[in-house]
């Protein structure tokens, strides 16, 4: 069996470390093209294509049973270890990277 935490704790900047069951998984962070100028092909790539890495990934979670804000974390998809994403200080919308 692979090593990794038994309980997954997510570092919520407002509530502290909380169990992953309090959160809704929003998914991989990807850059959204400008809806006004994106071609249909670009828009579909943004909608459908994912990196889905086996390893560290940057993703958004929604703290639905807590502060109800979106947070960004880095998680290892094989061990489920979690570490805070660099420079997480503000709300991240679904699918949008924090500047």
């Amino acid at each position, binding site marked *: *069996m*692979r090593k*990794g935490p038994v309980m997954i704790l997510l570092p919520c900047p407002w509530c502290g470390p909380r169990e*992953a*069951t309090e959160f*809704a*998984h929003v*998914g*991989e962070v990807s850059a959204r093209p400008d809806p006004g100028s994106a071609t*249909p*092909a670009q828009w*579909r*790539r943004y*909608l*459908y*294509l*994912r*990196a*889905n*890495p*086996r390893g560290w*990934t940057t*993703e958004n979670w929604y703290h639905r049973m807590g502060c109800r804000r979106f947070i960004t974390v880095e998680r290892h*998809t*094989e*061990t*489920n270890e979690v570490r805070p994403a660099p420079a997480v200080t503000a709300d991240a919308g679904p699918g949008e990277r924090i500047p």
Partner: protein
Amino acid sequence: MRMGTNGGLRKPGRNAYPAKYSAAGLFGRGLTSQPWPPAWQPRPMKDSYDVVIIGGGVHGLAAAYYLAANHGITDVAVLDKGYLGSGGSGRNTAILRSNYLTPEGVRFYDRSVKLYQRLATDLDYNVMFSQRGHLTLAHSDASLRTMRWRAEVNKVEGVESEVIGPAEVKRLAPFLDVSAAARYPVLGALWHPPGGIIRHDAVVWGYARGASAHGVHIHQNTEVTGIEVADGRVRAVATSNGRIATGAVLNATAGWCTVISDMAGVAMPVMTYPLQAAVTEPVKPFLSTVIVSGTLHVYISQTDRGELVFGASVDPFTSYSMRGSLEFIEGLAGHVLELMPALTKVRLLRQWAGLCDMTPDFSPIMGPTPVQGFFVDVGWGTYGFKAGPVSGEAMAQCIASGATPGIIGAFGLERFGEGELVGEKGAAAVGH
């Protein structure tokens, strides 16, 4: 292109098999204590093959078998990083059905059920297919509407399905709580008589045996570490046991489909989720159908040994981890007891997880890719096992002829760029 009604499945010659399985043979070997020959032959790995299939599960082995049996292409290697059937093929809940929502989906899965019906004869291997009927429960008006829709699409495609009321549900599954007092009352169900369960390991072993008898090489414990592509064509596959030169590679993996496709530089609209399942201690046979509840995210069947097998929806977040969780078991037990309160004292034997490659439209991705010679049979989400035979047959035809067979025409990778999705969420998943 139409698939032949008889599938063009030539039965391999009797002496091609290592041994002919029969009752008389069993009796004879019982008397003489003569051991059975191995079901498939281990052979040394060559440094080149016509076709390399990555993934030794039901999809990969079926494709290898049909390449050899239907198209005479026997210079084929099947690679698996573990043992045969160690991935999704040995972790699913072994349910077969064809009561899908889209005409493309219904035709495709119906072909698979028909192949499964005669698989034991085709492979000379007992796959223990039991067509005991499949009940999908409706707990809301919305799901009842979807079931009427599914029943009508099924009937048009010639697949037996009908919507039945709670009294009929009770008659088919007397242990179900269909009272109005239930937390989620059963309003009706989609009854699908051709559905059932099968021994999933036997399907894998049967295809491996059949493929090996035709000369296909099966290499277990061989992990693919890279795919060489030059001028837009596949040239070779790098493995943990050496390099294999080849012009055709089939990615038939589940869980690792993006990892393998990335090696060839093909981006996939796939996210990998674990799906957990559990099995109870054996009890007397009392459940003669497969029970599915989308609202309660659970499906239940009883094996020939008497164990109850429970499946569920995928975990709530993506992961390549196959570790089980306590939250899952708590939720699952609660949902099962909503349906069958009589099971309170039954103990769970074990739980496990498998990996599911989820696509945006809950349909698979099959066919060629922009890299010439790199074929995919992936994105099988939570519904891959039931499609093993038809996928193998269609992918074998695709690789042999270079043209995509009509039966999988709707499932190409290009549909995501063109926006032509095949939405099966209403019929493929229980987690919605």
